[in-house]
């Protein structure tokens, strides 16, 4: 039996893919997460009110999601409702993260696959000429608009600080808000152009490869809500494998009734499944469940997507295109919120951004829709200290689906005579389409 190990790159964290082959038959395809820090254990005994500072360090890519989820969990335990303007600011935080993350995944992580480069940075020298020289600069700038938005709403773009129990530490300052509006206005057409080029490049790649990857049906899970998408997190919805419109809807508190988590001997990350079926989270789950985005350009792309690929659509390369729709949405929606806050005089430092609260013991759940899917924090607080903490990570919902897609790819490129070199590239593409985050998945 031969064992092939593929190192991974252009994704967050430490992981590798191990494929076992016997006489030309793929025996297994495993995704191995190889790092572990132990957050569920290391926060034990710490004061519950310190979680919003500590848990963002689970992941620098997704720190915003953990920061907001921690605050929401404590608010659930203490029974606090933050004022509306604070909720708007937190939604901006989540949109900043969505914008930043989708730009990173589209341009830094997966664009190089479409033009055969090793990184975005050498795309200009190595890619085909039609890739305009300023693609690289534009891609990085659009991504930075996302990080600037997080900084505006969160104080810091990595490990933000502004969300606190009861609200936010301070409102938006008007100078920053106006500057942000200009940046977003600049970014919208540029991001659309980049996405259009990306869409074309993806079609060309699909054509060249003769496949869009694993396209068997799966269940989809998201928490952006039923009406207009809300990345601040609502209830969980699951679209069953049969693609029926009937969705299972449940609050974060009930996740254990629906989702089964299991450990693996070869990985520091657990895997979840829904009623023993393969489940998917992340962009494609949201786009498969979305009827509309409720912003003009994003709705245009959504219609085009559903018309071209159906609803639900299953091929894994469509995760990438779904990210582009969300990139455009994040820019449009952030603008809407900022305009609304400015027009209603809610942008100034002294706005009522926080309500008082009294801490108490108890158990609670906090849910946000992170770029990779629904993120749930669950804490039990005794004597003001963390007695139990669980982090239910979106990437973990995708791991079974990743392994299934890896197997599909391996079976395509392994024959009785040989293993095609293309397998190494295919493994990278498969994994990146799910945009997994290993620091989060193992925490």
């Amino acid at each position: 039996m031969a064992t092939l190990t593929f190192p991974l790159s252009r994704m967050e964290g430490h992981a590798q893919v191990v494929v076992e082959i016997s006489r030309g038959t793929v025996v297994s395809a495993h995704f191995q997460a190889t790092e572990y820090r132990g957050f569920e254990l290391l926060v034990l005994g710490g004061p519950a009110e310190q979680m919003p500072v500590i848990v963002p360090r689970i992941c620098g890519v997704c720190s915003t999601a953990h920061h907001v989820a921690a605050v929401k969990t404590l608010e659930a335990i203490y029974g606090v409702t933050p004022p509306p303007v604070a909720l708007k600011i937190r939604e901006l935080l989540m949109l900043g993260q969505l914008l930043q993350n989708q730009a990173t995944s589209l341009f830094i992580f997966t664009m190089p696959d479409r033009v055969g480069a090793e990184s975005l940075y050498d795309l200009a020298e190595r890619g085909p000429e039609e890739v305009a020289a300023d693609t690289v600069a534009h891609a990085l700038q659009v991504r930075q608009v996302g990080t600037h938005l997080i900084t505006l709403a969160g104080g810091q773009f990595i490990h933000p600080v502004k969300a606190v129990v009861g609200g936010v530490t301070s409102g938006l300052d008007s100078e920053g808000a106006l500057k942000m509006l200009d940046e977003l206005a600049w970014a919208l057409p540029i991001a659309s152009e980049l996405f259009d080029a990306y869409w074309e490049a993806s079609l060309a790649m699909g054509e060249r490869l003769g496949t869009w990857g694993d396209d068997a049906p799966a269940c989809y899970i998201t928490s952006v809500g039923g009406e207009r998408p809300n990345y601040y997190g609502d209830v969980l919805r699951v679209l069953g494998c049969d693609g029926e419109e009937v969705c299972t809807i449940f609050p974060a508190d009930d996740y254990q009734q629906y989702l089964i988590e299991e450990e693996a001997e070869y990985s520091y990350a657990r895997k979840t499944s829904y009623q023993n079926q393969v489940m998917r989270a992340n962009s494609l789950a949201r786009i498969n469940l979305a009827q509309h985005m409720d912003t003009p350009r994003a709705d245009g792309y959504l219609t085009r997507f559903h018309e071209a690929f159906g609803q639900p659509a299953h091929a894994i390369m469509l995760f990438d295109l779904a990210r582009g729709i969300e990139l455009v949405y994040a820019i449009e929606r952030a603008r809407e919120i900022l305009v609304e806050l400015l027009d209603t005089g809610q942008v100034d430092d002294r706005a009522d951004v926080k309500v008082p609260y009294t801490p108490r013991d108890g158990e609670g759940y906090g849910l946000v829709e992170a770029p990779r899917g629904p993120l749930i924090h669950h804490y039990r607080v005794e004597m003001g200290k963390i007695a139990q903490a669980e982090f239910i990570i979106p990437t973990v919902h995708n791991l079974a689906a990743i392994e299934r897609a890896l197997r599909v790819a391996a079976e395509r490129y392994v024959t009785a005579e040989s293993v095609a070199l293309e397998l190494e590239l295919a493994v990278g593409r498969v994994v990146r389409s799910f945009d997994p985050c290993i620091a989060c998945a193992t925490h």
Partner: protein
Amino acid sequence: MKRFAVVQLSGCAGCDVSLVNADAWVDEYKLVYMPLVVSTHDIPEVDILLITGGVRNDEDVYKLRHAVKRAQMVVAVGTCAISGGVANLGDRDEVREVFLAHHQPHLAPRLLPKCHPVDNYVSPDLYLSGCPPTPELFMAVLMEDQDFQASRIVCQECERSKLRDMRPTHLMGFQQGQVDSEICLINQGYLCIGSSTRGGCRAPCPRAGHPCVACRGPSDVFIEKDSEVWFGSIKRVFDSMTSVPSDEIEAGLRSPQLALFLFQFSDYAGDDRAARSREKMF
């Protein structure tokens, strides 16, 4: 063109993401190895090697030793590389046993009993502190920017004004209270460490209304001394500006969200290793 590489050990990738935001190096350097953004699986010879994350497992040890051999200059970046960082909260007495008893998948890298700073294994030429360091700090290091000016302490980069006649009697915790936007957070009862934390980050946290947790580590005067000296100085600031009982301050400083950063420099490992020199701090 000069070449640089980034090796990520066990951390959160925040340092790496911050570096991605610092793009002025694009014209001066070729980034030859950084798995987060580049698909190259081996480290070639480089002028500068940045190391992020702490040493948590046997694979980290190997990667670290393997990488430094190929570098002219080695920079330890971020709290995790400098002290082990947040993963070291698992080394508290209350947690250590549960931790060691935790299930370990036997086909994945083996965990070490605790998370180590990188200088337990190799000798960095420079330490760039911050959790994470800001993009501006990364650029100042990579570009050897002579014009870069950092203040001695975070307080000097924060525009809040200190008042003489506003003396809190108790600490607020970080979550409580309405934060006034002009007045020093210490006057408002927050355990902000900006008065002795090294500057250079431009004080984003206190500017946004959140206490500085000292992620940049101690200012130059305290670098070569052990943490008790630093603690003593923080307590003196609070004695002169507040009427908060000193045991309350002490407990606050030793609680996880601050201990994480306050122990990062001088005496982290508790071994006999000499103090890191202040010349090596950025």
